[in-house]
């Protein structure tokens, strides 16, 4: 396994020039958010990724989390690493100073988390989930609940979990059976929850479970589910930790990857019912969970980018060192590394250009969240909200699929040793595999894109975005027109696909469902191309002013060129699958499968 080197140059370039931090810095309350502060924070977060989290990635995979005599132990070194993050005040980065946070923008938190996810994905799930749980309490909890729980959760001395899934209720939350029975100022919760990430562990003094359960008067289906805070240890009015609540970790799952992250089966109420406190109003739990889920979906999508970056660094380093045969066309006397073989180069560029595209998508989505919540201008808020809505299924659905493909390519670059665990490339592939599944599978992201983002307004919102993409693409000229052309042709295909979907949705809903994932992938590739096209525009300006001592801007343009000729053409094939191909999905008789 190679060391992780934070890609600070591209992170800063993307933040400053593709996303543009000025708009975020101009938001009320962001007076301290200056370029030099961003630099200092990114440097130190990268330093921690490199020095603390990355060295623990292997031990997390090999030793993993263990349940022994009812106690969950994380891998050696993980407790200390969590303590370092908490002591450093990092968990509170995006939260209000009212709760002890730093009050910094979400987009900065996203860049910090990208590095941590790259360094150690299994570990960073803990701050990711904790931040998600903070959002639920912050947005929907009563003042009393907030006062008691938020300061500790923001600091990270207490971590958070999301308890949705039950054996019979996975993607279908309507099937949730966990019960909540009112008793005084609280409820008694009983039932079993599975797949609870960091559901139990030894890194924090308390764990705050956010649990979906049914009140006795709840109607059937998703409209009868409420959200509860269920602490691992009961908390008195002063915030002091008391007796253990009635929550048991029954077992930990044995998984393909992210071994360091304890995935718990939790049993609530084995001894009379665990004490839980209602969050917000009764029966609105799923709605609250969804507000939280949008954050979680972007955060999981970020893992797709992060794991691809890690896999790329490892593959590139190996390709430079490993000598194997004489590359065609090589004229030097000594054979160079396999990085000079054209197909290895093709694989590395396939990784690199999509990583750049994913980074820009994620940071744009994250900055849009900041603008959508923080802007004083209603038009800016609405536009930003549109971007968040359009980019969320892409950032989750497309980026995790790509992350997985790229982690697999990373193994391929290594050849046989990539398949051997000692090399470390295989871990990234195993770790990446979950990202297209949890927080809503790729198909669920595709449904979200098709139903809520395309069909709901008959393609208006996405149509406006496609217009913007096309206008930007057409501004590329000369040597870069091949990139602009690739994007513009993609827009034409995407428009036709949207029109076809809007037109055919009424005829047979199965057709638009079958078109979902191809449409999602098509939009992902196209929006990624748009992001790279924006990077080309900026890079050209820099090059024109003679500012490219290390070839960074030239490389950005070459990366976009490769993308336009190797990745963007897939838009055409996906457009066929999404339209004419959709009907074939259900044609074959089920018995013939």
């Amino acid at each position: 396994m190679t060391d992780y080197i934070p890609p600070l140059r591209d992170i800063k370039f993307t933040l400053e020039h593709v996303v543009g931090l000025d708009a975020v810095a101009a938001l009320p309350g962001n007076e301290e958010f200056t370029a030099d502060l961003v630099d200092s924070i990114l440097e130190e977060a990268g330093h921690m990724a490199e020095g603390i989290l990355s060295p623990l990635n292997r031990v997390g995979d090999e030793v993993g989390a263990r349940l022994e005599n009812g106690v969950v132990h994380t891998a050696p070194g993980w407790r200390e690493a969590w303590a370092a993050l908490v002591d450093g005040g990092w968990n509170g980065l995006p939260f209000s100073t009212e709760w002890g946070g730093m009050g910094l923008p979400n987009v900065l938190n996203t860049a910090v988390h990208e590095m941590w996810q790259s360094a150690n994905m299994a570990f960073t799930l803990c701050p990711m989930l904790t931040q998600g749980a903070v959002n639920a309490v912050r947005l929907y909890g009563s003042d009393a609940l907030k006062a008691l729980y938020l300061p500790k959760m923001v600091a990270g001395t207490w971590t958070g979990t999301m308890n949705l899934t039950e054996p019979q209720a996975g993607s279908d939350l309507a099937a949730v059976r966990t019960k909540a029975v009112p008793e005084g100022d609280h409820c008694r919760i009983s039932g079993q929850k599975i797949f609870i990430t960091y559901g139990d562990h030894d890194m924090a003094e308390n764990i705050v479970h956010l649990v979906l359960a049914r009140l006795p008067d709840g109607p059937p289906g998703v409209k009868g589910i409420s959200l509860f805070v269920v602490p691992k240890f009961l908390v008195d009015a002063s915030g002091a930790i008391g007796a253990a609540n009635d929550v048991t970790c029954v077992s930990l799952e044995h998984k393909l990857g992210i071994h360091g992250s304890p995935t718990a089966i939790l049993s609530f109420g084995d001894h009379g019912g665990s004490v839980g406190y209602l969050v917000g109003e009764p029966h609105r739990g799923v709605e609250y969970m969804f507000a939280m889920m949008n954050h979680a979906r972007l955060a999981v999508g970020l893992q797709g980018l992060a794991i691809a970056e890690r896999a790329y660094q490892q593959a590139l380093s190996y390709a430079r060192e490993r000598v194997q045969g004489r590359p065609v066309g090589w004229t030097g006397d000594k054979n160079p590394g396999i990085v000079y073989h054209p197909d290895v180069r093709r694989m590395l560029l396939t990784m690199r250009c999509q990583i750049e595209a994913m980074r820009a998508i994620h940071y744009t989505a994250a900055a849009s969240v900041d603008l959508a919540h923080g802007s004083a201008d209603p038009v800016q808020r609405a536009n930003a909200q549109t971007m968040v809505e359009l980019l969320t299924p892409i950032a989750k659905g497309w980026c995790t699929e790509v992350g997985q493909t790229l982690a697999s390519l990373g193994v391929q670059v290594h050849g046989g040793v990539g398949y051997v665990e000692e090399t470390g490339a295989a871990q990234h592939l195993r770790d990446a595999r979950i990202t297209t599944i949890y927080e809503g599978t790729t198909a669920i992201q595709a449904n979200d894109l098709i139903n809520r983002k395309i069909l709901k307004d008959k393609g208006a919102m996405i149509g406006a975005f496609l217009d913007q993409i096309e206008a930007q693409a057409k501004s590329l000229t000369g040597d870069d027109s091949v990139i602009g052309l690739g994007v513009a042709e993609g827009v034409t295909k995407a428009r036709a696909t949207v029109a076809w979907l809007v037109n055919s949705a009424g005829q047979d809903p199965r057709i638009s469902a079958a078109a979902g994932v191809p449409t999602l992938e098509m939009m992902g590739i196209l929006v990624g191309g748009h992001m790279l096209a924006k990077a080309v525009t900026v890079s050209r300006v820099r090059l024109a002013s003679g500012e490219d001592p290390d070839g960074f801007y030239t490389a950005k343009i070459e990366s976009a060129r490769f993308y336009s000729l190797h990745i963007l053409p897939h838009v055409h094939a996906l457009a066929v699958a999404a339209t004419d191909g959709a009907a074939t999905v259900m044609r074959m008789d089920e018995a013939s499968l």
Partner: protein
Amino acid sequence: MKILVGVKRVVDYNVKIRVKADNTGVETANVKFSMNPFDEIAVEEAVRLKEAGKVSEIIAVSLGIAQSQDTIRTALAMGADRGILVQTDVDLQPLAVAKLLKAIIDKEAPSLVLLGKQAIDDDSNQTGQMLAALLDWPQGTFASKITVTGDGIEVIREVDGGLETVALTLPALVTTDLRLNEPRYASLPNIMKAKKKQLDVITPADLGVDVTPRLTTLKVEEPPKRKAGIKVADVAELVNRLRNEAKVIP
């Protein structure tokens, strides 16, 4: 007690150094820079002494181009109280650095000066010793432990044969070695606070020091590439080669 710590901006220890094509130096364009690791140890030690209540103020000083402010900010984020940058585009050599530091020390009158034992870019290991001589102060170089005693400090030095303990009266100068401590990560609140701490920028002229380089670098080259190993036929050949080719045995 007031402490002055020297912090130098150097190419990050993780960067693979490349020699410039014209052999005048190493490539520094768009390379990651960070604080010299030995200086980080010096800052950490100063902060620990302050946390232990032995020190009232820590001043971080850097000398060089404008970007050295970033290095000072790092020291401020770790816990230094204020910074001074002597800004110049001239390539500063150890004697010039020692003279500039002396001028600042004459003004600030710290009781203790902590410097890294050497910077990882030029590996000179001269500034501390030169500065102590210019100040006519006692010096404890290559420190692996510093203890504040009644009226002075005790320094354990890492020397070839083992460890040497010296007692120094204050004011004194100490250069830090690798094992003195493990530098902390700056916390997020402290990174934010560092932005508000005082950082004065002055020039060599303000201090009346001539920083014109005295030494000329003739050439910078990559170290020779390692050659492939060979198999020897027998012990006699091995001894022969060790004696006559490698010249490692007499």
